[in-house]
């Protein structure tokens, strides 16, 4: 399989990365090189093979459903580019 320019632009949109036409053009070639490289996986017979979900066989650890942390709003917004009264500030999303 290979991708065309329109697909690359659509994927960039899905990934929320702004691309210029020039970027998209270059990425099309690069992505096709990588997709060409991974193509060989199709020759592997995977009939009856389960996809890997966990590399180490183990039951997922669960913790008690209790509050163990919190009260750190100031810490959480400390690195935000814009915040006010412990809220993150973003451009207006509702008209």
């Amino acid at each position, binding site marked *: 399989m290979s991708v065309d320019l329109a*697909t690359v632009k659509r994927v960039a949109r899905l990934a*929320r990365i702004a691309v210029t036409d020039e970027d998209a053009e270059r990425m099309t070639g690069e992505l096709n090189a990588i997709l060409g490289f*991974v193509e*060989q*996986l199709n020759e*592997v017979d995977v009939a009856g*093979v389960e*996809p890997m979900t966990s*590399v180490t066989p183990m039951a997922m650890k669960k913790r008690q459903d209790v509050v163990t942390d919190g009260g750190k709003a100031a810490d959480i917004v400390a690195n935000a580019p814009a915040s006010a009264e412990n809220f993150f500030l973003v451009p207006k*999303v509702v008209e």
Partner: protein
Amino acid sequence: MTDLTRLTIADARDKLRGKEITAGELTESYLAAIHAANDTLNAYVTVTPDRAREMAKASDARLARGESGALEGIPLGIKDLFATEGVHTQACSHILDGFKPRYESTVTANLWADGAVMLGKLNMDEFAMGSSNESSYYGPVVNPWRRSREEPSLMPSTHMGEGGFVHSGGGVTQARTLDNMRLVPGGSSGGSAAAVSAFLCAGATATDTGGSIRQPAAFTGTVGIKPTYGRVSRWGIVAFASSLDQAGPIARDVRDAAILLKSMASVDDKDTTSVDRPVPDYEAALGRSVKGMKVGIPREYRVEGMPEEIEALWQKGIAWLKDAGAEIVDISLPHTKYALPAYYIVAPAEASSNLARYDGVRYGLRVPGRDIVEMYEKSRAEGFGREVKRRIMIGTYVLSAGYYDAYYLQAQKVRTLIKRDFENVFDSGVDVILTPATPSAAFGIADEDMAADPVKMYLNDIFTVTVNMAGLPGIAVPAGLDGHGLPLGLQLIGRPFDEETLFQTAHVIEQAAGRFEPEKWW
């Protein structure tokens, strides 16, 4: 006074406890070495002298009271991927500009609890994506090793002495001059490997998703171990591909790597993939005989176009282990060639999900836009470098509607087969597998072939990536120099949670091969 930066961790530990030196003196020696070298090598992106002096002072106070942790007073460098409270933590990406976490990663917290001293944060490929440390926002790291201009006779066995003979990049033959060409230290943990090799820290933390500890270790003549998946907590480490990422140390020798891993590893409730098993005393495994041990040699690792020197090094490793009493057996890992292509689906898929969090809202870089979507798109376009964008794009594509089964599901099935190959070999009684660590020695910065074709760069990880796909432990240990006087490494792969056998066997190789140091030019 002797140069304290030359001491291994084990030696420094003894001298500190014996009150021959102080943590303050040791730390000052490293800070001076970093100050003199970093403009040239670019191994550190931030140096934390105040923090280092404060920690060393506290160590000296504890040592004076006769208390000492496993790493008391030992100065370490920390890869920029580990969250360090109040200190530069940016995964060497522009998108994390100014990020100073309000928390400490479990690994670094473990090190500080054992008395280690932080010197600063080490350079790396952006978000750990790369094999040359050239994708860092902070520029490439320069390998302390250089090619020598004349063909030296460094491979012969006459100098490969018994027991800890130290080879210097220029000390063996006299008529050699170093080439000025700047070489990469490998990646993604290039800063860690270069800093350890150039005596700018006693040891360093690193991470390995497809070879990012072992490949730079091999390129710099240092020892690097990627532990079993789940052995070291991932909490507080910036995530790249969560099912593959694992932290480990880069050190000057096998013993130091064992000492560091003991402190880094732990059982951690904050990481659900952290495995509930006690951490053994890895150092105790050194010196145990390998007599009767079964060492597997996988035929699929003899790849097309592999330089003769790599093959010769491999044969030498086989001979050393045979001489030490190990039994050598030929084995087959039939799905080896599919590990790298499967990796380039699984890793970008996980990365595209993990890196969705960088949106210009909660931390780091924000580029304003007309609306919130344009702000996301512009922030991510400016904040991520080329390689990172490439991988996010591949990941987004293979996970997108209509392609998930063809790519991601197929790759995860192939991954099951890769793991099964290893299980079959270990079930047949093989204790450890010996392979080359990399298909070549260090290459030049801005190598044109690598820059022109991303897949060519990816091939650096051909011998290491299988280990991540199967979640196994792997160690890279220096084993010789190539015709240009550059270090080459061998890799040992073990059963899950059998790091002890890796340290035991790597120590035998180290004893036979000697240790390797670059000639100082910086």
